[in-house]
Protein backbone atom coordinates (compact mmCIF):
# COMPACT_ATOMS: atom_id res chain seq x y z
CA UNK A 1 0.00 0.00 0.00
CA UNK A 2 2.95 2.29 0.81
CA UNK A 3 6.59 2.35 -0.26
CA UNK A 4 9.73 3.74 1.36
CA UNK A 5 11.77 6.64 0.05
CA UNK A 6 15.15 5.20 0.94
CA UNK A 7 18.33 7.03 1.78
CA UNK A 8 21.87 5.55 1.65
CA UNK A 9 22.34 6.21 5.37
CA UNK A 10 19.28 4.15 6.34
CA UNK A 11 19.81 1.36 8.82
CA UNK A 12 17.58 -1.67 8.41
CA UNK A 13 16.72 -4.25 11.04
CA UNK A 14 14.69 -7.47 11.10
CA UNK A 15 11.39 -7.74 12.91
CA UNK A 16 8.64 -10.36 12.74
CA UNK A 17 4.97 -9.77 12.00
CA UNK A 18 2.82 -12.76 12.91
CA UNK A 19 6.03 -14.78 12.93
CA UNK A 20 7.06 -13.75 9.41
CA UNK A 21 10.45 -12.10 9.00
CA UNK A 22 10.17 -8.50 7.70
CA UNK A 23 12.78 -5.82 7.00
CA UNK A 24 12.13 -2.44 8.63
CA UNK A 25 13.96 0.85 8.98
CA UNK A 26 15.31 1.32 12.47
CA UNK A 27 13.27 3.87 14.42
CA UNK A 28 10.30 4.06 12.07
CA UNK A 29 6.84 3.59 13.61
CA UNK A 30 5.69 -0.03 13.64
CA UNK A 31 2.43 1.07 11.98
CA UNK A 32 4.43 2.19 8.94
CA UNK A 33 5.76 -1.36 8.54
CA UNK A 34 2.24 -2.78 8.85
CA UNK A 35 1.14 -0.51 5.99
CA UNK A 36 3.83 -2.02 3.74
CA UNK A 37 3.11 -5.61 4.73
CA UNK A 38 0.06 -7.41 3.27
CA UNK A 39 -2.74 -7.57 4.31
CA UNK A 40 -1.91 -4.01 5.57
CA UNK A 41 -3.93 -4.38 8.78
CA UNK A 42 -3.15 -4.16 12.50
CA UNK A 43 -6.02 -5.95 14.21
CA UNK A 44 -9.61 -7.10 14.07
CA UNK A 45 -12.27 -5.36 16.14
CA UNK A 46 -13.63 -6.63 19.44
CA UNK A 47 -17.29 -6.31 18.42
CA UNK A 48 -17.68 -7.71 14.89
CA UNK A 49 -14.16 -8.97 14.16
CA UNK A 50 -13.78 -6.56 11.24
CA UNK A 51 -10.21 -5.90 10.07
CA UNK A 52 -8.68 -2.49 10.87
CA UNK A 53 -5.57 -0.73 9.64
CA UNK A 54 -3.62 2.24 11.00
CA UNK A 55 -5.83 5.28 10.40
CA UNK A 56 -4.65 8.51 12.08
CA UNK A 57 -0.93 7.76 12.75
CA UNK A 58 -0.86 10.16 15.74
CA UNK A 59 -2.05 8.01 18.62
CA UNK A 60 -5.66 9.19 18.63
CA UNK A 61 -7.73 6.53 16.82
CA UNK A 62 -6.38 3.32 18.40
CA UNK A 63 -7.09 1.34 15.23
CA UNK A 64 -3.41 0.40 14.83
CA UNK A 65 -3.28 -1.54 18.10
CA UNK A 66 -1.33 -4.81 17.99
CA UNK A 67 0.65 -7.04 20.33
CA UNK A 68 4.25 -5.80 20.48
CA UNK A 69 6.85 -7.95 22.26
CA UNK A 70 4.09 -9.67 24.20
CA UNK A 71 2.24 -6.53 25.33
CA UNK A 72 -1.27 -6.30 23.85
CA UNK A 73 -3.18 -3.21 22.65
CA UNK A 74 -0.09 -1.16 21.83
CA UNK A 75 -0.63 1.75 19.47
CA UNK A 76 1.88 0.76 16.78
CA UNK A 77 2.04 4.31 15.37
CA UNK A 78 3.63 5.43 18.65
CA UNK A 79 6.22 2.65 18.89
CA UNK A 80 9.58 2.80 17.13
CA UNK A 81 10.96 -0.27 15.39
CA UNK A 82 13.98 -1.94 16.98
CA UNK A 83 15.91 -5.03 16.01
CA UNK A 84 14.22 -8.34 16.78
CA UNK A 85 10.83 -6.79 17.65
CA UNK A 86 7.93 -9.27 17.57
CA UNK A 87 4.64 -7.85 16.31
CA UNK A 88 1.46 -9.90 16.33
CA UNK A 89 -1.78 -8.64 14.79
CA UNK A 90 -4.40 -8.55 17.52
CA UNK A 91 -7.48 -10.70 16.88
CA UNK A 92 -10.76 -9.56 18.42
CA UNK A 93 -11.05 -9.28 22.18
CA UNK A 94 -7.98 -9.58 24.36
CA UNK A 95 -7.37 -12.86 26.07
CA UNK A 96 -5.62 -13.36 29.36
CA UNK A 97 -2.45 -14.62 27.69
CA UNK A 98 -2.00 -12.86 24.37
Amino acid at each position, binding site marked *: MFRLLTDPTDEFVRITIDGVDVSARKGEPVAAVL*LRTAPFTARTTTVTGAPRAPYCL*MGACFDCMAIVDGVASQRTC*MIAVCDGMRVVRQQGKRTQTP
Partner: protein
Amino acid sequence: MTTCDVLIVGAGPAGMATAMRLRKAQIDVIVVDDARAPGGQVWRAAEQSADGMASVLGADYRAGREAIARFRASGARYLAETEVWRLDDGWRAFTKHRGTIDRIDAKSVVLATGALERPVPFPGWTLPGVMTVGGAQTLLKGARQIPQDGVWIAGAGPLVLLYIAQLRAFGGRIAGWLNTAPRSNLWTALRHWPAMFRNAPDLAKGMAWRSQLALSNVPIIDVRDVAAEGDGQLETIRYTTTRGKTHRVDASLLLVHEGVVPNIHATVALGCAHRWSSQQQCFVPQLDAFRMTSRDDLYVVGDGGGILGARAAGLTGELAALGILARMDRSSAKDRERESAVLRARLERETAFRGFLDTLFLPRRAVLMPDDETIVCRCEEVTARSIRQAAHVRGSGPNQIKAFTRAGMGPCQGRQCGLVISQIAGSESGKDMDSVGYLNIRPPLKPITVGEIARAAKLESP
Protein backbone atom coordinates in the same frame (compact mmCIF):
# COMPACT_ATOMS: atom_id res chain seq x y z
CA MET B 1 9.42 12.26 41.54
CA THR B 2 10.48 15.58 40.07
CA THR B 3 9.37 19.14 40.67
CA CYS B 4 9.45 22.22 38.47
CA ASP B 5 7.80 25.64 38.20
CA VAL B 6 6.01 24.97 34.93
CA LEU B 7 5.14 21.68 33.26
CA ILE B 8 4.42 21.92 29.54
CA VAL B 9 2.64 19.03 27.86
CA GLY B 10 3.52 18.92 24.16
CA ALA B 11 6.65 20.01 22.28
CA GLY B 12 5.11 21.42 19.13
CA PRO B 13 5.42 25.10 18.10
CA ALA B 14 3.22 26.29 21.01
CA GLY B 15 4.86 24.22 23.75
CA MET B 16 8.37 25.07 22.61
CA ALA B 17 7.62 28.81 22.37
CA THR B 18 6.15 28.80 25.88
CA ALA B 19 9.22 27.02 27.22
CA MET B 20 11.68 29.34 25.49
CA ARG B 21 9.98 32.51 26.75
CA LEU B 22 9.89 31.14 30.30
CA ARG B 23 13.54 30.11 30.11
CA LYS B 24 14.46 33.69 29.20
CA ALA B 25 13.27 34.53 32.72
CA GLN B 26 15.18 31.54 34.17
CA ILE B 27 11.99 29.69 35.10
CA ASP B 28 12.40 25.99 35.82
CA VAL B 29 10.53 24.25 32.98
CA ILE B 30 9.88 20.62 32.07
CA VAL B 31 8.44 19.77 28.66
CA VAL B 32 7.02 16.29 28.08
CA ASP B 33 6.03 14.99 24.67
CA ASP B 34 4.87 11.65 23.34
CA ALA B 35 6.99 11.74 20.17
CA ARG B 36 10.63 10.73 19.81
CA ALA B 37 11.78 14.30 19.08
CA PRO B 38 10.44 17.84 19.47
CA GLY B 39 8.40 19.50 16.72
CA GLY B 40 4.83 18.32 17.20
CA GLN B 41 2.79 17.22 14.20
CA VAL B 42 3.71 20.17 11.99
CA TRP B 43 7.47 19.83 12.47
CA ARG B 44 7.53 16.08 12.98
CA ALA B 45 11.05 14.69 12.50
CA ALA B 46 12.21 18.10 11.14
CA GLU B 47 15.41 17.82 13.17
CA GLN B 48 16.37 14.41 11.81
CA SER B 49 15.29 14.92 8.21
CA ALA B 50 18.01 15.18 5.58
CA ASP B 51 18.51 18.60 3.93
CA GLY B 52 17.02 17.46 0.65
CA MET B 53 13.94 16.04 2.31
CA ALA B 54 13.35 19.16 4.40
CA SER B 55 13.68 21.43 1.36
CA VAL B 56 11.09 19.49 -0.60
CA LEU B 57 8.70 19.58 2.35
CA GLY B 58 8.83 23.39 2.22
CA ALA B 59 10.16 26.51 3.91
CA ASP B 60 7.72 26.32 6.84
CA TYR B 61 8.96 22.83 7.65
CA ARG B 62 12.60 23.90 7.37
CA ALA B 63 11.92 26.78 9.77
CA GLY B 64 10.97 24.16 12.33
CA ARG B 65 14.56 22.99 12.55
CA GLU B 66 15.71 26.40 13.78
CA ALA B 67 12.94 26.55 16.35
CA ILE B 68 13.81 23.06 17.60
CA ALA B 69 17.52 23.94 17.86
CA ARG B 70 16.68 27.06 19.91
CA PHE B 71 14.37 25.01 22.11
CA ARG B 72 17.08 22.40 22.68
CA ALA B 73 19.48 25.18 23.74
CA SER B 74 16.94 26.94 25.99
CA GLY B 75 17.71 24.95 29.14
CA ALA B 76 14.20 23.51 29.43
CA ARG B 77 14.22 19.90 30.61
CA TYR B 78 12.76 17.90 27.74
CA LEU B 79 11.35 14.38 28.17
CA ALA B 80 10.69 12.54 24.89
CA GLU B 81 8.28 9.62 24.48
CA THR B 82 6.59 10.64 27.73
CA GLU B 83 2.82 10.80 28.16
CA VAL B 84 0.80 12.41 30.96
CA TRP B 85 -1.94 9.91 31.80
CA ARG B 86 -3.27 11.59 34.93
CA LEU B 87 -3.22 15.17 36.16
CA ASP B 88 -4.31 15.94 39.73
CA ASP B 89 -5.05 19.32 41.27
CA GLY B 90 -2.16 21.18 42.59
CA TRP B 91 -0.61 20.17 40.03
CA ARG B 92 0.63 16.61 40.10
CA ALA B 93 1.22 14.93 36.76
CA PHE B 94 1.64 11.18 36.44
CA THR B 95 3.75 10.28 33.46
CA LYS B 96 4.68 7.17 31.54
CA HIS B 97 7.91 6.76 29.61
CA ARG B 98 8.04 3.36 27.94
CA GLY B 99 7.29 1.14 30.97
CA THR B 100 8.36 3.66 33.63
CA ILE B 101 5.86 5.59 35.73
CA ASP B 102 6.86 8.86 37.35
CA ARG B 103 5.32 11.96 38.91
CA ILE B 104 6.07 15.60 38.15
CA ASP B 105 4.83 18.34 40.50
CA ALA B 106 4.45 21.82 39.05
CA LYS B 107 3.01 25.19 40.08
CA SER B 108 1.54 25.75 36.62
CA VAL B 109 0.67 23.39 33.79
CA VAL B 110 0.53 24.40 30.13
CA LEU B 111 -1.35 22.09 27.78
CA ALA B 112 0.13 22.35 24.30
CA THR B 113 -1.53 19.22 22.99
CA GLY B 114 -2.62 20.70 19.68
CA ALA B 115 -5.29 19.50 17.33
CA LEU B 116 -6.74 16.30 15.96
CA GLU B 117 -8.12 15.79 12.50
CA ARG B 118 -11.87 16.21 12.59
CA PRO B 119 -13.63 12.85 12.66
CA VAL B 120 -15.06 12.25 9.17
CA PRO B 121 -17.70 9.53 9.48
CA PHE B 122 -18.96 8.35 6.09
CA PRO B 123 -20.00 4.93 4.85
CA GLY B 124 -16.98 2.62 4.79
CA TRP B 125 -14.54 4.88 6.67
CA THR B 126 -13.47 2.01 8.93
CA LEU B 127 -12.20 -0.15 6.03
CA PRO B 128 -8.46 -0.81 5.79
CA GLY B 129 -7.32 1.34 2.88
CA VAL B 130 -9.06 4.44 4.26
CA MET B 131 -6.75 6.75 6.20
CA THR B 132 -6.51 10.41 7.03
CA VAL B 133 -4.49 12.90 4.98
CA GLY B 134 -2.75 13.92 8.21
CA GLY B 135 -1.82 10.29 8.81
CA ALA B 136 -0.35 9.99 5.33
CA GLN B 137 1.58 13.21 5.83
CA THR B 138 2.92 11.91 9.15
CA LEU B 139 4.14 8.82 7.27
CA LEU B 140 5.86 11.07 4.75
CA LYS B 141 7.60 13.26 7.35
CA GLY B 142 8.17 10.71 10.09
CA ALA B 143 8.66 7.50 8.13
CA ARG B 144 9.56 8.77 4.66
CA GLN B 145 6.96 6.63 2.99
CA ILE B 146 4.47 7.45 0.25
CA PRO B 147 1.53 5.63 -1.30
CA GLN B 148 2.59 2.86 -3.67
CA ASP B 149 0.05 3.67 -6.36
CA GLY B 150 -2.11 6.62 -7.38
CA VAL B 151 -3.98 7.74 -4.28
CA TRP B 152 -7.48 9.18 -4.01
CA ILE B 153 -8.10 12.08 -1.66
CA ALA B 154 -11.55 13.09 -0.41
CA GLY B 155 -12.12 16.21 1.63
CA ALA B 156 -10.99 19.79 1.81
CA GLY B 157 -8.74 22.12 3.74
CA PRO B 158 -5.24 23.59 3.62
CA LEU B 159 -3.67 20.26 4.60
CA VAL B 160 -5.15 18.59 1.51
CA LEU B 161 -3.48 21.16 -0.74
CA LEU B 162 -0.19 20.97 1.17
CA TYR B 163 -0.06 17.16 1.11
CA ILE B 164 -0.87 17.03 -2.60
CA ALA B 165 1.98 19.48 -3.30
CA GLN B 166 4.41 17.55 -1.07
CA LEU B 167 3.46 14.13 -2.40
CA ARG B 168 3.84 15.26 -6.01
CA ALA B 169 7.26 16.74 -5.18
CA PHE B 170 8.37 13.30 -3.95
CA GLY B 171 7.17 11.57 -7.11
CA GLY B 172 3.90 10.31 -5.70
CA ARG B 173 0.79 10.18 -7.87
CA ILE B 174 -2.69 11.52 -7.09
CA ALA B 175 -5.45 9.52 -8.80
CA GLY B 176 -7.94 12.26 -8.06
CA TRP B 177 -9.15 14.75 -5.49
CA LEU B 178 -12.81 14.55 -4.52
CA ASN B 179 -13.37 18.09 -3.31
CA THR B 180 -16.05 18.17 -0.62
CA ALA B 181 -16.05 21.94 -0.01
CA PRO B 182 -18.99 23.41 -1.95
CA ARG B 183 -17.93 26.07 -4.48
CA SER B 184 -20.59 28.34 -3.00
CA ASN B 185 -18.49 28.54 0.18
CA LEU B 186 -16.06 30.72 -1.75
CA TRP B 187 -18.62 33.52 -2.15
CA THR B 188 -19.43 33.51 1.55
CA ALA B 189 -15.75 33.26 2.41
CA LEU B 190 -14.85 36.25 0.26
CA ARG B 191 -16.54 38.60 2.72
CA HIS B 192 -13.33 38.08 4.70
CA TRP B 193 -11.24 39.36 1.81
CA PRO B 194 -9.96 42.64 3.24
CA ALA B 195 -8.53 40.81 6.26
CA MET B 196 -6.84 38.17 4.13
CA PHE B 197 -4.37 40.61 2.69
CA ARG B 198 -3.07 41.33 6.16
CA ASN B 199 -1.41 37.92 5.97
CA ALA B 200 -0.06 38.15 2.43
CA PRO B 201 2.53 35.33 2.74
CA ASP B 202 -0.11 32.73 3.66
CA LEU B 203 -2.44 34.02 0.98
CA ALA B 204 0.36 33.68 -1.59
CA LYS B 205 1.22 30.19 -0.35
CA GLY B 206 -2.36 28.96 -0.64
CA MET B 207 -2.76 30.46 -4.08
CA ALA B 208 0.51 28.87 -5.23
CA TRP B 209 -0.65 25.42 -4.08
CA ARG B 210 -3.98 25.89 -5.77
CA SER B 211 -2.53 27.16 -9.06
CA GLN B 212 0.11 24.39 -9.23
CA LEU B 213 -2.72 21.96 -8.76
CA ALA B 214 -4.79 23.60 -11.48
CA LEU B 215 -1.84 23.31 -13.88
CA SER B 216 -1.24 19.66 -13.01
CA ASN B 217 -3.19 16.76 -14.47
CA VAL B 218 -4.73 15.86 -11.09
CA PRO B 219 -8.48 15.45 -11.62
CA ILE B 220 -10.45 17.67 -9.23
CA ILE B 221 -14.03 16.52 -8.85
CA ASP B 222 -16.57 18.48 -6.82
CA VAL B 223 -18.60 15.98 -4.83
CA ARG B 224 -21.38 16.07 -2.28
CA ASP B 225 -21.05 12.49 -1.10
CA VAL B 226 -18.36 9.82 -0.77
CA ALA B 227 -18.52 6.17 0.30
CA ALA B 228 -15.85 3.47 0.59
CA GLU B 229 -16.81 -0.05 -0.38
CA GLY B 230 -15.06 -3.41 -0.20
CA ASP B 231 -14.93 -6.77 1.48
CA GLY B 232 -12.51 -6.42 4.39
CA GLN B 233 -10.56 -3.71 2.59
CA LEU B 234 -11.18 -0.74 0.32
CA GLU B 235 -11.93 -1.84 -3.25
CA THR B 236 -14.22 0.84 -4.66
CA ILE B 237 -14.94 4.50 -3.99
CA ARG B 238 -18.46 5.62 -4.76
CA TYR B 239 -19.01 9.34 -5.10
CA THR B 240 -21.83 11.62 -6.13
CA THR B 241 -20.88 14.82 -7.88
CA THR B 242 -22.43 18.16 -7.02
CA ARG B 243 -24.42 17.75 -10.25
CA GLY B 244 -25.97 14.59 -8.87
CA LYS B 245 -24.18 11.93 -10.93
CA THR B 246 -22.92 8.85 -9.09
CA HIS B 247 -19.65 7.18 -10.13
CA ARG B 248 -17.59 4.24 -8.92
CA VAL B 249 -13.81 3.94 -9.20
CA ASP B 250 -11.46 1.12 -8.17
CA ALA B 251 -9.08 2.17 -5.42
CA SER B 252 -6.79 0.65 -2.80
CA LEU B 253 -6.09 3.80 -0.80
CA LEU B 254 -8.36 6.73 0.04
CA LEU B 255 -7.16 9.61 2.21
CA VAL B 256 -9.77 11.75 3.92
CA HIS B 257 -9.62 15.13 5.65
CA GLU B 258 -12.14 17.74 6.79
CA GLY B 259 -9.94 20.10 8.77
CA VAL B 260 -8.66 19.88 12.32
CA VAL B 261 -10.27 20.49 15.73
CA PRO B 262 -8.77 21.22 19.16
CA ASN B 263 -7.73 18.22 21.23
CA ILE B 264 -9.86 18.90 24.33
CA HIS B 265 -9.41 15.50 25.97
CA ALA B 266 -7.37 16.82 28.92
CA THR B 267 -9.24 20.10 29.45
CA VAL B 268 -12.57 18.25 29.56
CA ALA B 269 -11.14 15.71 32.01
CA LEU B 270 -9.92 18.57 34.21
CA GLY B 271 -13.33 20.22 34.29
CA CYS B 272 -12.35 23.38 32.40
CA ALA B 273 -15.19 25.48 30.98
CA HIS B 274 -15.64 25.12 27.22
CA ARG B 275 -17.74 26.88 24.63
CA TRP B 276 -19.01 25.92 21.20
CA SER B 277 -17.34 27.68 18.27
CA SER B 278 -19.85 27.81 15.43
CA GLN B 279 -17.23 29.24 13.07
CA GLN B 280 -14.98 26.21 13.59
CA GLN B 281 -17.76 23.72 14.47
CA CYS B 282 -16.01 22.40 17.58
CA PHE B 283 -15.70 22.91 21.34
CA VAL B 284 -12.89 25.15 22.59
CA PRO B 285 -11.74 25.72 26.17
CA GLN B 286 -12.59 29.19 27.52
CA LEU B 287 -9.36 31.13 27.96
CA ASP B 288 -8.46 34.51 29.40
CA ALA B 289 -6.27 37.06 27.62
CA PHE B 290 -3.16 35.17 28.74
CA ARG B 291 -4.46 31.72 27.79
CA MET B 292 -5.42 30.62 31.30
CA THR B 293 -8.39 28.22 31.46
CA SER B 294 -11.21 28.49 33.99
CA ARG B 295 -8.89 26.56 36.34
CA ASP B 296 -6.16 28.57 38.08
CA ASP B 297 -2.63 28.00 36.78
CA LEU B 298 -3.77 25.75 33.96
CA TYR B 299 -3.14 27.10 30.46
CA VAL B 300 -3.85 26.04 26.90
CA VAL B 301 -1.58 27.22 24.10
CA GLY B 302 -1.68 26.57 20.36
CA ASP B 303 -4.43 24.84 18.42
CA GLY B 304 -5.78 23.13 21.54
CA GLY B 305 -7.47 26.46 22.34
CA GLY B 306 -8.98 26.92 18.87
CA ILE B 307 -7.43 26.37 15.45
CA LEU B 308 -5.08 29.21 14.49
CA GLY B 309 -2.12 27.45 12.83
CA ALA B 310 1.53 26.87 13.71
CA ARG B 311 2.89 30.44 13.67
CA ALA B 312 0.03 31.76 15.77
CA ALA B 313 0.54 28.79 18.11
CA GLY B 314 4.00 30.06 19.02
CA LEU B 315 2.61 33.53 19.77
CA THR B 316 -0.08 32.11 22.05
CA GLY B 317 2.66 30.22 23.86
CA GLU B 318 4.56 33.45 24.49
CA LEU B 319 1.36 35.10 25.76
CA ALA B 320 0.83 32.27 28.25
CA ALA B 321 4.44 32.62 29.38
CA LEU B 322 3.81 36.31 30.12
CA GLY B 323 0.70 35.41 32.10
CA ILE B 324 2.65 32.85 34.13
CA LEU B 325 5.51 35.29 34.80
CA ALA B 326 3.04 37.87 36.08
CA ARG B 327 1.34 35.38 38.40
CA MET B 328 4.77 34.37 39.72
CA ASP B 329 5.57 38.08 40.30
CA ARG B 330 8.45 37.78 37.88
CA SER B 331 7.40 40.65 35.64
CA SER B 332 5.87 44.07 36.13
CA ALA B 333 2.42 44.87 34.81
CA LYS B 334 3.98 47.51 32.58
CA ASP B 335 6.45 45.11 30.95
CA ARG B 336 3.73 42.56 30.46
CA GLU B 337 1.42 45.05 28.77
CA ARG B 338 4.15 46.29 26.45
CA GLU B 339 5.28 42.83 25.36
CA SER B 340 1.80 41.40 25.05
CA ALA B 341 0.63 44.31 22.90
CA VAL B 342 3.32 43.42 20.37
CA LEU B 343 2.38 39.74 20.48
CA ARG B 344 -1.31 40.50 20.03
CA ALA B 345 -0.64 42.66 17.00
CA ARG B 346 1.37 39.85 15.41
CA LEU B 347 -1.29 37.32 16.37
CA GLU B 348 -3.97 39.40 14.70
CA ARG B 349 -1.95 39.50 11.48
CA GLU B 350 -1.22 35.75 11.57
CA THR B 351 -4.84 34.87 12.09
CA ALA B 352 -6.26 37.36 9.60
CA PHE B 353 -6.72 34.49 7.18
CA ARG B 354 -8.66 32.30 9.59
CA GLY B 355 -12.18 33.55 8.94
CA PHE B 356 -11.71 33.00 5.22
CA LEU B 357 -10.34 29.46 5.69
CA ASP B 358 -12.97 28.46 8.25
CA THR B 359 -15.75 29.58 5.90
CA LEU B 360 -14.20 28.19 2.72
CA PHE B 361 -13.57 24.77 4.28
CA LEU B 362 -16.59 24.53 6.56
CA PRO B 363 -17.11 20.77 6.87
CA ARG B 364 -19.99 19.42 4.79
CA ARG B 365 -23.15 18.51 6.64
CA ALA B 366 -22.88 14.78 5.86
CA VAL B 367 -19.72 14.62 7.96
CA LEU B 368 -21.24 16.52 10.87
CA MET B 369 -24.55 14.64 10.69
CA PRO B 370 -23.81 11.25 9.15
CA ASP B 371 -26.68 9.17 7.76
CA ASP B 372 -28.15 6.32 9.78
CA GLU B 373 -26.07 3.47 8.36
CA THR B 374 -22.71 5.13 9.02
CA ILE B 375 -20.55 3.96 11.91
CA VAL B 376 -19.86 6.91 14.23
CA CYS B 377 -17.95 5.17 17.03
CA ARG B 378 -15.19 3.22 15.31
CA CYS B 379 -14.12 1.36 18.46
CA GLU B 380 -17.50 0.00 19.53
CA GLU B 381 -18.92 0.03 15.99
CA VAL B 382 -21.99 2.08 16.87
CA THR B 383 -23.99 3.54 13.98
CA ALA B 384 -25.52 6.99 13.72
CA ARG B 385 -28.94 5.29 13.85
CA SER B 386 -28.23 3.82 17.31
CA ILE B 387 -26.98 7.18 18.52
CA ARG B 388 -30.10 8.96 17.17
CA GLN B 389 -32.36 6.39 18.80
CA ALA B 390 -30.57 6.86 22.12
CA ALA B 391 -30.80 10.63 21.69
CA HIS B 392 -34.58 10.33 21.40
CA VAL B 393 -34.85 8.92 24.90
CA ARG B 394 -36.07 11.97 26.77
CA GLY B 395 -33.37 14.46 27.58
CA SER B 396 -30.44 12.33 26.49
CA GLY B 397 -27.14 14.13 26.14
CA PRO B 398 -23.77 12.71 25.07
CA ASN B 399 -23.19 10.86 28.34
CA GLN B 400 -26.57 9.14 28.36
CA ILE B 401 -26.04 8.19 24.72
CA LYS B 402 -22.67 6.75 25.71
CA ALA B 403 -24.23 4.69 28.50
CA PHE B 404 -27.04 3.40 26.24
CA THR B 405 -24.92 2.52 23.20
CA ARG B 406 -21.27 2.19 24.38
CA ALA B 407 -20.33 4.87 21.82
CA GLY B 408 -17.23 6.57 23.23
CA MET B 409 -16.39 3.73 25.61
CA GLY B 410 -13.81 1.96 23.46
CA PRO B 411 -10.04 2.32 23.40
CA CYS B 412 -10.00 5.80 21.82
CA GLN B 413 -12.29 7.12 24.58
CA GLY B 414 -14.36 9.28 22.26
CA ARG B 415 -11.51 10.97 20.42
CA GLN B 416 -13.02 9.86 17.10
CA CYS B 417 -16.74 10.07 17.91
CA GLY B 418 -17.19 12.58 20.75
CA LEU B 419 -17.79 15.59 18.55
CA VAL B 420 -20.23 13.75 16.29
CA ILE B 421 -22.18 12.37 19.26
CA SER B 422 -22.59 15.93 20.59
CA GLN B 423 -23.66 17.20 17.19
CA ILE B 424 -26.23 14.45 16.73
CA ALA B 425 -27.52 15.03 20.28
CA GLY B 426 -27.80 18.74 19.53
CA SER B 427 -29.60 18.24 16.27
CA GLU B 428 -32.06 15.66 17.68
CA SER B 429 -32.87 17.68 20.80
CA GLY B 430 -32.83 21.10 19.20
CA LYS B 431 -30.70 22.37 22.08
CA ASP B 432 -27.81 24.71 21.48
CA MET B 433 -24.37 23.08 21.55
CA ASP B 434 -23.25 24.82 24.74
CA SER B 435 -26.05 23.15 26.68
CA VAL B 436 -25.53 19.80 24.92
CA GLY B 437 -21.87 19.70 25.97
CA TYR B 438 -19.40 16.88 25.51
CA LEU B 439 -18.66 13.39 26.85
CA ASN B 440 -17.24 13.20 30.38
CA ILE B 441 -13.58 12.24 30.16
CA ARG B 442 -11.81 10.58 33.07
CA PRO B 443 -8.25 9.44 33.65
CA PRO B 444 -6.30 7.50 32.60
CA LEU B 445 -5.93 9.96 29.73
CA LYS B 446 -3.58 7.57 27.93
CA PRO B 447 -3.55 3.76 27.82
CA ILE B 448 -1.79 2.20 30.76
CA THR B 449 -1.50 -1.32 32.14
CA VAL B 450 -2.82 -2.44 35.52
CA GLY B 451 0.79 -3.10 36.52
CA GLU B 452 1.70 0.50 35.71
CA ILE B 453 -1.21 1.82 37.79
CA ALA B 454 0.02 -0.36 40.66
CA ARG B 455 3.52 1.08 40.32
CA ALA B 456 2.03 4.59 40.47
CA ALA B 457 0.57 3.83 43.92
CA LYS B 458 3.86 4.45 45.67
CA LEU B 459 4.01 7.90 44.06
CA GLU B 460 0.59 8.89 45.44
CA SER B 461 1.61 10.67 48.64
CA PRO B 462 2.19 13.25 49.86
